[in-house]
């Protein structure tokens, strides 16, 4: 079946631009996670949704980062006024049940801020 998909796969932005990254989780998955992966590092947790509710956003690095999942399926991670340090791969993962023990990852969106 279809896995987690993300778009765009690559995004180049000029510093100061706003970007929106999309995640389509596996159909029916309750839990959705966003992670940020810097070059040569492991992914780091950003935020968690259970259906449409954002229950944890403790990993978001600044108030320029905003995520939503209005209908409990597709999610969008928005970064306002992008900075060079935002350059990273942004990974989305979904999990069938609440809690997120088994997370299935998408291919990620590679963001480069110039």
């Amino acid at each position, binding site marked *: 079946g279809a896995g987690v998909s993300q778009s765009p796969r690559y995004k180049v932005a000029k510093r100061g631009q706003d970007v929106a990254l999309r995640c389509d989780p596996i159909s029916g998955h309750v839990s959705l996670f966003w*992670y940020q992966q810097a070059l040569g590092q*492991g992914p780091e*947790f950003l935020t968690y949704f259970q259906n449409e509710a954002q229950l944890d956003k403790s990993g978001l690095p600044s108030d320029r980062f905003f995520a939503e999942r209005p209908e409990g399926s597709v999610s969008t991670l928005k970064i306002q006024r992008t900075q060079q340090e935002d350059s990273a791969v942004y990974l989305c993962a979904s999990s069938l049940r609440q809690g997120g*023990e*088994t997370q299935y990852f998408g*291919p990620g969106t590679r963001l480069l801020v110039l």
Partner: protein
Amino acid sequence: GESVGLHLPTLSVQEGDNSIINCAYSNSASDYFIWYKQESGKGPQFIIDIRSNMDKRQGQRVTVLLNKTVKHLSLQIAATQPGDSAVYFCAENNPLSSGSARQLTFGSGTQLTVLP
């Protein structure tokens, strides 16, 4: 803060040999660990997991060992194949501080290269 880390950043093995990838963790309260494989341009892929009430778990060609005394994990890959070339991460799967879910805390990874 507490973190998960790896002993070696790179590992090269001959095709057909066994591979051992090591991982140290610092959170003694962690109760669930997962190994992921990440190929270039792809997201992490689940390989095998282990809970803290076990010290060994076997899958297809892979074995994970957990030593809680020294807070150490290892991933053993038998008869390593070219398709095994990737970055391998160990991750702790622990409750978020909010209690709403479990998050993955990854180490920095080991690049495994399989030589022909």
